[in-house]
């Protein structure tokens, strides 16, 4: 690069200064401020003591973290040795050669890579290389309040209900006078926020993001039916200010006893069912996320995982930490120090079979079954050229997903009609796909 020459002198000088501070045993980890990651941060001194290494934590809110890590890894910035990334980024970044392959983890008998659910492993791989190891994985299911259902005379569904049936139930348990809203769903715009729920809802209504030729399908009748349902449901039975509520806001509302139903990540269950954190721990139960025109892609799939940028100079130390932080022993340590109900779920078979977990968190079995029912490679009723349930695993999806998310939020806020929102979304998606060269 020419810029390099331009700044060579200054660069050399600065690097000489910088090199003095570098130490082989210090690694920088970029992490999200989610509960399970904070627990890891609290337990990490044990690894530091055992190995003599030191971790510098960079804790950021999810969106800021995603922007910072993407910016750094794509420019080869080298600011981080380990990053928390998700099931969306991992295959894309892996294909770009930005991540260090972790295939040699399979050779470590003690680590027992095979113990991690195959679905999770495959979603964190690209071109048959493993690029990240999971702390937890999740699908979505319906949280509901047993006390409110009982009061309203609604029985727990035993098989997958439809969204129409779901709305009928919600109408019965809606009780705003007593500060209880029939349903809390994500309304905050963003591909990882409202579009996660809306994506599965659209799947259920038989919609798809693209047809086999990568033509956007957002103006289809299926999308219209799904968004109309969503806006209607939320306007009638949702909490006020729903466009500001993402996963975390809804989780807080649900734990505070303000929601009767909530379709969201299974990974929140250990928090909601933890009496230390939640007012509704004893009166919350779960059932499958509803279907409608199809039962395909009705529960999403996501995983938060640890990966090492290919540019990291400290890959061996980083790999050592990765193994420690996703090992069987780590999950057991969480169980022993934080209680088994707090153990991150959805990654290791041996942990899900552990009697201590099954006793403290009987719902873990439901979570496992729900995760096993997801198939990201076959997410929709009609054929599609992509994988991913609530996202489309292409780089352009973030931009499109965010824009559509904003339009859906605008429809929810009543600023535009569902038709206008979807027409704008369709235009934008067509633009982006043309710009990126999918549409010739």
């Amino acid at each position, binding site marked *: *690069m020419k*810029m*390099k020459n331009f*700044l060579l002198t*200054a*660069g050399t000088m*600065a*690097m000489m*200064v*910088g090199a003095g*501070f570098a130490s082989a045993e210090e690694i*920088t980890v*970029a992490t999200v*401020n*989610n*509960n399970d990651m*904070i627990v890891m*941060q*609290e337990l990490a001194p044990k690894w530091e003591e055992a190995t003599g290494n030191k971790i*510098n*934590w*960079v*804790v*950021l*809110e999810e969106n*800021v973290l995603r922007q*910072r890590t993407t*910016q*750094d890894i794509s*420019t*080869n*910035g*080298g*600011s*981080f040795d380990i990053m928390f990334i998700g099931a969306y980024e991992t295959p894309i970044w892996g294909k770009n050669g930005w991540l260090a392959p972790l295939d040699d983890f399979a050779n470590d008998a003690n680590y027992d890579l095979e113990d991690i659910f195959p679905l999770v492993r495959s979603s964190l791989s690209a071109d048959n290389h493993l690029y990240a190891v999971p702390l937890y994985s999740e699908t979505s299911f319906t949280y509901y309040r047993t006390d409110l259902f009982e009061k309203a005379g609604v029985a727990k569904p035993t098989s997958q209900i439809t969204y129409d049936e779901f709305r009928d139930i919600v109408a019965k348990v809606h009780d705003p006078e007593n500060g209880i809203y029939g349903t809390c769903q994500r309304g905050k715009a963003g591909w990882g926020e409202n579009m996660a729920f809306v994506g599965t809802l659209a799947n259920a209504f038989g919609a798809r993001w693209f047809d086999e030729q990568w033509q956007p399908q957002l103006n289809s009748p299926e999308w219209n039916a799904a968004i109309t349902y969503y806006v209607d449901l939320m306007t009638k039975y949702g909490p006020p200010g729903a466009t500001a509520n*993402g*996963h*975390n*806001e809804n*989780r*807080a509302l649900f*734990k*505070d006893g303000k929601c009767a139903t909530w379709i969201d990540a299974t990974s*929140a269950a250990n*928090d909601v069912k933890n009496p230390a*954190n939640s007012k509704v721990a004893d009166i919350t139960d779960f059932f499958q996320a509803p279907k409608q025109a199809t039962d395909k892609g009705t529960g999403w799939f996501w995983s938060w995982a640890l990966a090492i940028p290919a540019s990291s100079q400290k890959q061996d130390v980083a790999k050592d930490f990765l193994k420690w932080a996703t090992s069987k022993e780590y999950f057991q340590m969480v169980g022993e120090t934080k209680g088994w109900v707090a153990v991150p779920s959805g990654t290791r078979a041996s942990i899900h079979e552990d009697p201590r977990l099954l006793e403290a968190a009987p719902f873990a079995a439901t979570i496992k079954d729900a995760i096993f029912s997801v198939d990201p490679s076959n997410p929709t009723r009609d054929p599609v050229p992509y994988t991913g349930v609530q996202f489309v695993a292409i780089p352009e999806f973030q931009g499109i997903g965010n824009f559509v998310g904003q339009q859906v939020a605008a429809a929810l806020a009543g600023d535009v009609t569902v038709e206008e929102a979807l027409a704008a979304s369709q235009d934008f998606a067509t633009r982006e796909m043309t710009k990126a060269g999918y549409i010739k």
Partner: protein
Amino acid sequence: MARAVSTRTKVLNTAIAGTLGFLMFFPILWIIILSFKTEEDAIRAPLEVLFQSGWTIENFLTVQARSDYFKHFSNSVIISLGSTLLGLIIAIPAAWAMAFVPAKRTKDVLMWMLSTKMMPPVGVLVPIYLIFRDTGLLDSLIGLTVVLMLINLPIIIWMLYTYFREIPGEILEAARMDGATLKKEILYVLAPMALPGIASTILLNIILAWNEAFWTLNLTAANAAPLTAFIASYSSPEGLFFAKLSAASLMAIAPILIMGWFSQKQLVRGLTFGAVK
């Protein structure tokens, strides 16, 4: 005002101004109150928060245990003081020359300097990020200090310029006539007159640098991260967080708030930007 004013008017003025002042200050007061409450109490109705809940310092302990406050704090101090000092070294001669040896284009130069602040930082982040990467300045205090110095330099120069310009040139002439050397001229005549303006400039620049939240967040990782990055880990986490957010916020703004309060007279005195003749 020189005239005698009735106590009644004074009381009325105090009541109106006091109410408005309290309203302006209330959000900060609320941060302070919530930071000493438990998470469960912090989301209760305002009156319940005030009268039916206890006090705790647990939030501050949690925040400190989770993220190393003092490291972020010292980074903030180094960056804001460093960029201010560096800025002054460059700005004082420039402002001096502009004020005392004005040329035809002085005003244009000044306006051009201000216009460099109009570039949206988000638009040039990637180029700057690449430059920082290639020069090894990513996540370094030096790099951040220089950037903050540069973004605030136009404001510093302008403030100093307007302040210096009000110092009458005749005084300098008179001192020179009396046989004062340049050193004495600066030390005994100029410095005392310029100090209030410089003090005020320093204060404003420290405030601006302390609160800058784009470059400080995007160009740092672990080593050079100041308090703006510290706050980024407390925004919308899972679960209840009002109390911890308040505690972290208070820890981030308290130093500058206290400095501002103690030095508000100095700050105000020079904060005129030539608006007062």
